[in-house]
């Protein structure tokens, strides 16, 4: 019974769906690389999913390619290049630094620096504002006396 339950859990887990029946079995290390790679590659049909998450035909084909290439002994870089040669850097969720992507990589830091500079200037300016003259206790008392 427990074995059946376990089998059911495995069979119906999304992880299994995201795997394709493959010809060659991978070693544990290769399997780990396969998992990492398919989670790094974008599916072009449903663009906000990785090929691991997508059920599109193209994602299945690409997973199969990744699997076969790992089994054939290709390195992760070779496999990434295989995909980017065909579909461009867009398929990489972590695009390489290039003239086109430099804004993407540097932009947030530029914004952060700008915000910091603004904050420093803002705080400085507040500190140099003329501070209200401290109240003169004698004058206060005189004013109060006048009221009475």
């Amino acid at each position, binding site marked *: 019974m427990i074995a059946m339950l376990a089998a059911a859990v495995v069979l119906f887990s999304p992880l299994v769906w995201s795997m394709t029946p493959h010809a060659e079995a991978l070693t544990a290390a290769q399997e780990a690389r396969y998992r990492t790679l398919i989670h790094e590659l974008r599916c*072009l049909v449903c663009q906000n999913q990785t090929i691991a998450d997508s059920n599109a*035909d*193209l994602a299945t084909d690409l997973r199969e390619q990744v699997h076969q290439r790992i089994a054939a002994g290709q390195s992760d870089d070779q496999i990434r290049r295989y995909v980017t040669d*065909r579909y*461009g850097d867009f398929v990489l969720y972590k695009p390489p630094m290039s003239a086109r992507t430099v804004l993407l990589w540097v932009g947030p830091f530029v914004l952060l620096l700008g915000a910091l500079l603004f904050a420093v200037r803002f705080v400085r300016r507040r500190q140099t504002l003329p501070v209200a003259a401290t109240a003169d206790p004698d004058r206060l008392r005189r004013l109060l006396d006048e009221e009475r």
Partner: protein
Amino acid sequence: MRYVVPVALLLGLLVLLALGLRQDPSLVPSPLIGKPAPEFTLPMLEDAEQTLTPAALTGRPVLVNFFASWCAGCQVEHPLLMRLAGEGVEIVGLDYKDEPQAARRWLQRHGNPYRIVAQDRDGLAGLDWGVYGVPETYVLDADGTIVYKQVGPLTERAWEQHIRPLLGRTS
């Protein structure tokens, strides 16, 4: 005066957002532009004994059109392909992930604009061309170099603005 900088920043942001809205995020620029057509050897649709290779695509500009009988967008562009074929534009069809039987019937019903049709049944050639959804059309110059890629149905506008000038220059 003190509002000039924030307003300028806001306007700049609005312009960027407006530009972003006008772009179609589903169009992925192909890294194959300017590269020779990928290698393939595919069986012909009419006679699977014969094969098509990129060598057969050089010598004159050619449109390579990935289509399928199950593809709705292909019917949208079909009348335009028929017209272009009638005007003497050479179109080669690659039948993507399709049953040859179904493809033949589809071409009989809608007309055949292709000079050559080859089958890419498992879609592996499509993978090498960077196809991610049929129909897709590639423009090859006389050297067999890919000079333009149209994702989705070929349109009158794409033909007039992009493809025709390219063919005019390369032929």
